[in-house]
């Protein structure tokens, strides 16, 4: 089964990393730096994890596939943001399926924060990602594999 994951995450220094992974490898990405002293500790993350037999293999096709699912995913994020503001349990990472994905495909939102007070920050982040979904996807750059 193939997997595609869109993620956006924020660091303590305010830096934000956005990317798309195919089968666990980031193929498209973008990092928004800040002027604060660098600190790689993570404050929160949001993942849109997709799995299924008919998902694309290639970076641009994955971007296109996610763009085609925009309305479905944006609605799912707004719904979860509302639940967070209503005070759902945030003691562990949240996992919420997005219904009505195409047959044989599953889409889930995962999100987590380093500390409980960040729950509202996550709701804001979900709203931001939902509002700028296409823009975030279109700004991602093709990445070369990291040399270790």
């Amino acid at each position: 089964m193939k997997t595609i994951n869109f993620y956006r995450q924020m660091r303590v220094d305010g830096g934000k990393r956005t990317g798309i992974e195919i089968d666990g490898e980031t193929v498209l990405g973008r990092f928004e730096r800040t002027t604060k002293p660098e600190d790689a500790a993570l404050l929160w993350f949001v993942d849109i994890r997709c799995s299924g037999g008919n998902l694309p293999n290639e970076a641009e096709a994955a971007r296109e596939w996610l763009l085609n699912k925009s309305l479905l995913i944006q609605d799912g994020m707004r719904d979860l943001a509302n639940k967070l503001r209503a005070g759902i349990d945030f003691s562990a990472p949240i996992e919420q399926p997005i219904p009505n994905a195409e047959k044989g495909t599953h889409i889930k939102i995962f999100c987590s924060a380093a500390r409980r007070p960040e729950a509202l920050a996550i709701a804001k982040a979900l709203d931001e990602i939902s509002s700028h979904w296409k823009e975030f996807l279109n700004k991602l750059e093709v990445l070369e594999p990291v040399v270790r």
Partner: protein
Amino acid sequence: MANRIFDASYLISHWRTFPKTSKRTLENMRLWSEKLIEQYGSRRIVTPVYIEMVAGVTSSAELKLAQAYLASFEIVDEGKIPKEDWDKAKYMAQRVAANGGKRQLGDCLVRAIANRLNCEVLTADRRFPGP
């Protein structure tokens, strides 16, 4: 996976919350770490984290359980820590936070490696100052 690296504080905290109603077998410890990996969308750690985890065990039986737990993770630095990481870790260690909190070797090194690999650190330790 999603450029996230677990630090030792995260793994130790998760290790300690293994359900009291379950038996600590090798398979159950593996499944326990897989649950964390699923929740946080990453199986990445670095060598200092692996060492800190196994260094915390107090018996050979517990070591086997820790090894089973850690086997699910990928050590992304592959045991190769270049001089630039040590230099960056040294730089971080020399930064004194406003609250005067002390820095730990492991924390500095994990963040130095994470910076080099363009990763973020999943940490339960909020005291550590940025580099």
